[in-house]
């Protein structure tokens, strides 16, 4: 009897660990929140999206309102202005070097959902969710960092209508999961 009880403890502990891992994932303990890697070109969002320019996010992220993919601006979009503006700045020189070498800028990805989740940007943008709701005040970030956990509990929070202002969306599994 004593021997059997000892062995029961192993699956019991494993089950406990699995439950803890799932709970922590749901709550956001394992997310890459506040992840802020250095980028190959130190693109300053405040310079463009705040201050005097106040460019709309969709100017560069051109498909956020019409595609699941928000769209990364082509290097050509940057060079549209930067062939004449601030060409002496060191970061613009880096950008121009990419352009002249006909190489795209290898931006480091920060926001990433797991492969088993689909997140259509256009549904959210067109549904009245501002970019900042999920991405934080990017227009004030010198270096972009992940503002939210992007975990399931965090998503569900809005989908059940606990956002401000309250928006409601379907939250059955197949809404987000394949």
């Amino acid at each position: 009897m004593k021997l059997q009880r000892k062995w029961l403890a192993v699956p019991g502990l494993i089950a406990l660990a699995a439950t803890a891992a799932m709970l922590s994932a749901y709550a956001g303990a394992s997310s890459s929140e506040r992840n802020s890697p250095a980028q190959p070109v130190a693109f300053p969002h405040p310079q463009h999206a705040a201050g005097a320019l106040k460019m709309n996010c969709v100017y560069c992220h051109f498909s956020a309102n019409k595609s699941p993919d928000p769209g990364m601006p082509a290097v050509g979009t940057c060079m549209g202005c930067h062939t004449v503006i601030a060409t002496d700045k060191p970061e613009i020189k880096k950008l121009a070097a990419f352009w002249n070498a006909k190489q795209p800028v290898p931006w480091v990805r920060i926001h990433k959902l797991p492969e088993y989740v689909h997140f259509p940007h256009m549904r959210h943008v067109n549904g009245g969710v501002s970019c900042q709701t999920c991405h934080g005040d990017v227009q004030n970030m010198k270096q972009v960092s992940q503002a939210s956990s992007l975990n399931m509990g965090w998503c569900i929070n809005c989908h059940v209508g606990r956002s401000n202002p309250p928006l409601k969306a379907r939250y059955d599994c197949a809404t987000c999961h394949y």
Partner: protein
Amino acid sequence: MSVEETVGVKRRDFLKVVGAAGATTAMIGCSSEKVEKLIPYLVSPDETVPGVSTYYATTCRECSAACGVIAETRDGRTIKLEGNPAHPLNRGALCARGQSALQGLYNPDRYRGPMIRRNGRLEEVTWDEALKLFVQKLGELGGSAQNAAFVNRHESGSLPLFLNEWLAGMGIPASLSIDPNADHAAIAANRQAYGVAWPRYDFSAARLIISVGADFLDGWGASVAHQLDFADARAKLTGAPRMVYVGARRSLTGLNADQWINARPGSELSIVHMLGGVNAVTPEQAAQQSGVDVATLTALKREFDSARPAMLLAGGASPSGMELCLAAYNVNSASGAIGTTIKPAEAINSFEGIDPPSHLRVLAARMQAGAVPMLMVRGVDPVYSMGKSLGFAAAMAKVPFKVSFSAIPDETTAMCDLVLPDNHALESWGDAEPVRGTLSLQQPAMDPVFNTRSTADVLIAAVRATPATATRYPLPDYRSWLLARFPGGASTFAAALPRGVTAGTTPVPTTRTLPAPLVMPPAAATAGD
């Protein structure tokens, strides 16, 4: 030491295992994610939204039939083909072979770029080098150009016209239009009997369909059109036709038949003769030849005699292919099927202009005699498809300079001196005329995967590279050539492009005059086999 302690897990061991497992889980499961890159475009292509598909109406070139397809392209890559509902031939359907065109498009064996044979091996070169050699060899032809040959994959539309015009400008005879998969016996018989290569088979009009070896639902002629018409016929609530399949192999058509009669290969002609009462062939005689019992054949004959309108199809591999097809024509003619169930007036145009295999045999004989100074091959593989006994490979080896426009390595290209790989059909401009009076347009659904060029563009570039002939083609590419000649001009073309089909016609290729064979080919050159 108690027994329990020796048998059970020791406390320390247990902790070690749990600790190691936990550490591994932490290492794998909770490490910061792999650093991913977001690679933007250098310059964003027009009309492209990442993650959203664009649909292009174009033409399938997997067989001669030229069905219409809608190609779905996402992020610059074609990912799915479907039939074009506006197309008169396939009406939104697409066969397995058409579906698999993408496998050819992304085939990893495709040539990456042009190649020249040096020291016995094909070496990758630039297009400039390859074109230079091509132009040089064309220039060296001089008066012997009239003995050079161009073997092309059969297709309807403007390309054969363009090609023959180009060849005429070079002094080279018109191209051979080859389709190794066509039922040449049936086409030759149709041409003799109806004056068209492929009549329309109106299955809905028939009460009884008998197919003798003609696998019309799977690869015999314009299968997709046949399948749709047959499905319509069988869906009729009253008067749907009965179908009997006679043949040794239970093909897809045999599987869909109400009755499959397993006749011995080679006995097809006797059964057709029996049905028509030709040569006084009785069911007993046909039964003896075919190995089918007399009662079955007697019943078949009785059924055929009483069912009107009826349709008798014959074809497929048979030693007496053309004779069989003509015999079937005579039976159909006597039973009043011509014009009621078999409609030459609504012919499928795609198969017009296919050269019979005998023309390739004539070419092989001329090559064998050393009379051909240059051979150009595009889209077909005669060394493989002609059969070894005809000696195409040995004959081809006697040609001093051989050019291939093939996109993938094959037996013919393996013997060539210069490879100028063609674009895939989904990367090319063009048109086809599947039904007389309807043009099916072909447009690129994506940029070329590899460093390939459309053959028509290469031919134009070769002419423009020579100052003496440069004025012959003032337009830079085949697309411009096509638009300039298109009925209604570029605006009509642009307006028709989203739909993929438009009214219009291309002139029928004239019957070619072949140079006389220097040596008679080994096998008798009948048009039928």
